[in-house]
């Protein structure tokens, strides 16, 4: 068998490739379908947002991609390799903050770095504390931080292990409006600097339009991908620009929400 040499800089596999994903839960003997044949491909360094009606299974989909749930059928591949469980190369940022309340800011960021020698670990922790602007809070416990700081801490903990992929499940949903806007800007800044592949689930269409290279619109449960929208606009994006408003209105149409209330 002969294989053609791969061209330098071109990877044969997309970063993430999902094919024919089905998932159903057992509901008192009857299967209740949650995911109904999801196909998607994400390239390395891409920022993809998943939106859909509430309860459609978008969070469940992300848990399957993260390896926390086994699909009933179908496959999830990363770099051409089948996903069999969670892996430090792909970190999940949970909707309900999952920073460990019994550890300090330093302890949390260093959680996945115990394999590193002490000095390197300390340097890495200091770098990410700086990156998310938590300087001065190294020894603080999560209960001493605001909601936005906690969320930044979780992002820092995720980035510290240098993953290729970040899965973010409505990471800013519990924050107030202003903090949420700031967190979006922070996330974009970090993404532009570190070039991770990001899949972000949100119910906030403005968030998806502001952040994503691509927005995938899911159907109501059982979830399928109804529509893929490319967003070629450069950052920073103006939330009031006609192009943004047009995109937002298209997504709302797709989801089937009445715009005029």
């Amino acid at each position: 068998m002969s294989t053609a040499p791969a061209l330098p800089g071109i990877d044969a596999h997309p970063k993430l490739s999902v094919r024919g994903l089905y998932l159903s839960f057992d509901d008192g003997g009857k299967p209740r379908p949650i995911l109904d044949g999801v196909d998607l491909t994400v390239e390395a360094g891409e920022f993809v947002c998943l939106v859909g009606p509430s309860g459609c299974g978008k969070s469940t989909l992300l848990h399957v991609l993260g390896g926390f749930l086994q699909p009933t059928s179908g496959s999830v591949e990363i770099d051409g390799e089948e996903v069999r469980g969670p892996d430090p190369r792909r970190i999940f940022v949970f909707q309900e903050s999952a920073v460990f309340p019994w550890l300090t800011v330093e302890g949390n960021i260093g959680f996945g770095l115990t394999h590193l020698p002490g000095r390197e670990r300390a340097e890495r922790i200091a770098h990410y504390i700086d990156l998310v602007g938590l300087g001065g809070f190294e020894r603080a416990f999560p209960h001493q931080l605001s909601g936005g700081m906690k969320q930044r801490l979780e992002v820092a903990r995720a980035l510290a292990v240098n993953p290729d992929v970040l899965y973010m499940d409505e990471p800013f949903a519990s924050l107030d409006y202003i903090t949420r806007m700031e967190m979006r800007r922070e996330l974009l800044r970090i993404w532009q600097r570190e070039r991770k592949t990001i899949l972000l689930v949100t119910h906030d269409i403005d968030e998806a339009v502001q952040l994503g290279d691509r927005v995938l619109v899911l159907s109501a449960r059982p979830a399928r991908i109804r529509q893929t929208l490319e967003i070629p606009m450069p950052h920073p994006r103006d939330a009031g620009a006609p192009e943004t408003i047009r995109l937002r209105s298209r997504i709302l149409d797709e989801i089937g929400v009445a715009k005029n209330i």
Partner: protein
Amino acid sequence: MRRLKPLLPLALLVALWQLAAGRFIPTPTAVAHALGGLLASGALIKHIVASVFRITWGFLLASLVAIPCGMALALHRRWRLTVNPLLALLRPLSPLAWTPLAVLWFGVGDSPAIFLIFIACAPTLALIAMAAVRSIKPAYVNAGRNFGLSNVQLLRRVIFPAAAPQILAGMRTTLAVAWSVLISGEMLSVNSGLGFLIMDARNAGNRFDLVFAGMLAIGAVGFGIDAAMRLMERTEMMRWAQLR
């Protein structure tokens, strides 16, 4: 002045006590005298040491056995289904019902008392540890697995610290129950300890001043034990559960 305020009800109680004193209720001064005598002779210390020794060992053994068992039950559904009925049967059984068997198996002395404490605490502690582990936020466990922890590391670095505050709070209430069980147990089957002191004082010619002195000592030591447990709950590693 404000710091003395909590003492006010206590002073009131002593005053009422003085008024109520009679044939079966010794005066506060008589009890203070009895307490002084017990302290001077070293008898009080001897009985306190005996009781504290038993509760320490019984409670420690129960914790070391029951807490890991309870945590394991939380993580294994099938074990849980097997053991749960047994625990449900054991728990409402008064630990004192074991006294005849405890004496039969362990003779007299410290061992039967330690066994009673063990049997009083172990089922409750197992259930507490099980509930604590089962109520851990799934996101913590998922995050731990996401960072590539093995099962043993997950237990040590996530499950144990996440469940610790709830387990500790449960240990505190269990220990208070164990203390009262021990005192009752000592009335039945041993010849030292604060429970024995009370029974002995009554049997030796209705010395109610000594009975009252013993009761005060039991309250004071129980309070001390609880205060020590409360101090542990206040450490930074535990405090998050109350502040969240």
